[in-house]
């Protein structure tokens, strides 16, 4: 036994709701040496989390480990009894979950949950455990290490919870830590703090780790080895440097390609950019009670002014809670502005969608982040796309049916999909249907609210390509809202940076290297790069971080 972890020919089966049995892990083998961090990378459904959890001898309900060996620290987890496995969980192998916010019990204090492992396994007295926890909080650079344990999970931020869940894993002094996409739910500026904290703790104690992620750039910062997975099979294994510089497998190359900046072609239509399509002036909107001056107490959007020109795209970028989604809802009239003007195609628009004319509504469409919730699960695709056709264009049955085919062609979906319901489509397909529904109205402007953030890198890149093509064919304009700089950079002519409800800067993609506003500087410098030395070499102005990195 040379390696800490040796997985041989692992097979896991899942039973679907319909009772069918599918093999989701098809004979995976991998090794992890002492103190080494191995990343499992792949799209959703590739089995990366399933494999990581199997190292603890655990398969989610409906799944079953059916074959192979999972040797961790000399014990075959697959062959142990549930009692024996429970004894190793938390002590030998510890788990850091994807969403710490959901993985903390809301009705119990943080300290109670962090030291629970020591109680379960009788590792040390509660006083010792609390002392150790405070040490860990300090090592993970959490604010107020003495007092944070007394709080409840909802009283601390997402980034802090993620580090607290690492403390929860570390307290049992594990030999192996499993990180399940621990930074996916975080903003980039927060992600850096969390990654740095993880890395320094793992390195200091020489703990081995499994890092599950779909983000190659994040993995490049923390992993020694990378295992690329697809469809429950290992596609490629190598050191981080090998994978990044000399990937062999086509799928790995596809993943890498999604990171390469694509050259933007200049607009063929020279005068396209001269006409103003949408202008909003000093728009303010928010939530809560309305004050004497007619403005709400909590301002999600604060005196924002922006212009979208015909045939051109505006990107809006910022962290969660900066007001970018509210801005989209204000422009679409779903959330009426409290002050300011919205001028669309030369005419002033009412603030509420209900008071706008049907044509005004038709010409401005919005595509929401989660296709899952935006599409009616009870209707087949053709009904979903037909609805705006009947509503805006009054087409009869036959004309609608013809147009649905055309629209499905436009978004590059096979026509046969029209009879399916949303639950029978993949994430990328659902987002295309969602987009086709907006196109059906024949709009001039489409507001895209984080439409790629729920998609895998490769799928998202394909959706962006599609958007660009449709723009060339149909002369559309997009307002593209995202927290992901690379996505916005790929498609937008202008980028507006939002912070705390305000517009802090507007720049063009070619000037992204040299933002002028300090917040833009912090935000842009926080986007992980494929270069493995990036995180260690990153020096951030502490003043900037304390001013804006408030999470």
């Amino acid at each position: 036994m040379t390696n800490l972890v040796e997985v041989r020919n692992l097979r896991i089966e899942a039973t679907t709701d319909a009772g069918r049995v599918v093999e989701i892990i098809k004979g995976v083998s991998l090794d992890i040496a002492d103190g080494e961090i191995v990343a499992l990378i792949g799209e959703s459904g590739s089995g990366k989390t399933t494999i990581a959890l199997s190292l603890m001898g655990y398969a989610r309900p409906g799944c079953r480990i059916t074959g192979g060996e999972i040797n961790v620290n000399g014990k075959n987890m697959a062959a142990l009894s549930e009692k024996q496995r429970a004894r190793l969980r938390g002590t030998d192998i510890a788990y850091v979950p994807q969403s710490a916010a959901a993985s903390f019990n809301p009705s119990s204090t943080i300290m109670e949950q962090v030291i629970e492992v020591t109680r379960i396994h009788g590792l040390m007295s509660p006083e010792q455990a609390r002392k150790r926890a405070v040490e860990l909080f300090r090592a993970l650079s959490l604010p107020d290490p003495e007092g944070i344990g007394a709080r409840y999970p909802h009283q601390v931020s997402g980034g802090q919870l993620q580090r607290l869940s690492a403390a929860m894993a570390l307290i049992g002094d594990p030999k192996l830590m499993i990180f399940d996409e621990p930074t996916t739910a975080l903003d980039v500026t927060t992600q850096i703090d969390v990654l740095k904290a993880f890395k320094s703790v793992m390195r200091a104690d020489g703990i081995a780790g499994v890092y599950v992620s779909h983000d190659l750039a994040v993995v490049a910062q923390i992993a020694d080895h990378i295992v690329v997975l697809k469809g429950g099979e290992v596609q490629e294994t190598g050191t981080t440097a090998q994978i990044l510089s000399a990937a062999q497998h086509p799928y790995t190359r596809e993943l890498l390609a999604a990171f390469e900046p694509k050259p933007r072609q200049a607009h063929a239509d020279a005068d396209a950019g001269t006409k103003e399509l949408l202008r909003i002036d000093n728009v303010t909107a928010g939530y809560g009670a309305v004050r004497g001056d007619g403005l709400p107490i909590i301002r999600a959007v604060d005196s924002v002014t922006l212009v979208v020109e015909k045939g051109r795209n505006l990107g809006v970028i910022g962290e969660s809670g900066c007001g970018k989604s509210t801005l989209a809802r204000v422009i679409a009239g779903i959330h009426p502005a409290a002050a300011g003007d919205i001028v669309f195609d030369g005419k002033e628009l009412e603030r509420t969608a209900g008071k706008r004319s049907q044509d005004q509504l038709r010409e401005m469409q919005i595509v929401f982040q989660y296709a899952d919730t935006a599409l009616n699960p009870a209707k087949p695709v053709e009904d979903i796309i037909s609805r705006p056709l009947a509503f805006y264009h009054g087409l009869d049955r036959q004309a609608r049916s013809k147009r649905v085919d055309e629209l499905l062609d436009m978004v590059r979906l096979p026509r046969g999909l029209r009879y399916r319901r949303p639950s029978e489509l993949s994430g990328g397909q659902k987002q295309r249907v969602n987009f086709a529904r907006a196109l059906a109205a024949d709009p001039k402007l489409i507001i895209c609210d984080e439409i790629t953030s729920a998609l895998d890198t490769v799928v998202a890149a394909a959706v962006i390509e599609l958007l660009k093509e449709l723009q060339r064919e149909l002369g559309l304009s997009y307002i593209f809202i995202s927290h992901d700089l690379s996505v916005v950079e790929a498609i937008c002519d202008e980028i507006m940076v939002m912070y705390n409800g305000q517009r802090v800067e507007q720049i063009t993609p070619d000037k992204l290297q040299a933002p002028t506003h300090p917040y833009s500087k912090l935000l842009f410098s926080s986007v992980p790069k494929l270069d493995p030395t990036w995180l260690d070499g990153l020096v951030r102005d502490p003043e900037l971080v304390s001013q804006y990195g408030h999470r």
Partner: protein
Amino acid sequence: MTSGVLNLVLKRLAIAVITLLIVLFAVFFATSMLPGDTASILLGQAATPEAVAGLRQAMHLNDPAILRFLRWLLGLLHGDLGTSYANEMPVAALIGGRFINTMELAGITTLLSVPLALTLGITAAMLRGSLYDRTVTILSIGVISVPEFMVATLAVLLFAVYLKWLPALSSVNEAHTLTDLVRIYAMPVITLTFVISAQMIRMTRAAVIETLSTPYVEMALLKGASRGRMVLKHALPNALGPIVNAVALSLSYLVGGVIIVETIFNYPGIAKLMVDAVATRDLPLIQSCAMIFCLGYLLLITVADIIAIMSNPRLR
């Protein structure tokens, strides 16, 4: 934080008082609209029209309904529930003994059924999918589906008629020894426990199963926690809100809904009193009974809400 809870409790109480007023109003006018006249019922068929008119006058029955309602409400503020139309006795005296009887029955049933239902619900959730779970589920669905008069009648047939273990009627006043008491209460309590436990078992099981599938319970499993710890420490505290509400709803049935059980076992409780009062159009009595039912219900729901709020740190 504490002032927030206090605020919430006060708000709840204010809403409860308003609800009570609306219910009283509705009950009063619904009863007033019933066909039949108190005076003619009281005097019987042989009464002369003059006698009826005289009695109406004496009982203020000719006053507008709203005036009578307000008069009764005013009396209530002084702690006076009014005087029964039917037998000229103070309503408070009529209700007093009956109320205690009903509370006794409800109390004993609660003590028996709540622990039973919670235990069955939680254990069924822990052993989800097992033979035990399926047995509990099928039995509780079965019990929900059988009407209570059926359960009660079958119980009488079995225990009183064939086995002759228990008396068919529950005359509380004849109880002198502990054995007597057990014998008297056994059948009504068993019947009521059947009726209210089933719903509590099902709700408890559903609430616990739902929290068992949350990420924080999975996290507890991956920390090496035992099944008992996962349920008692992680799932149950978070399922408390729905469970307490289900318990409150079931228990509220014990205050007003026990009429069938009280009738079958001839148990002198308050629900039976109210039905008798409806027969004689005895408005003050009906009104007072309705108020007690409504108060009991509001009390249970408010307590359940407050427990649910206290058990959730996000609301606390």
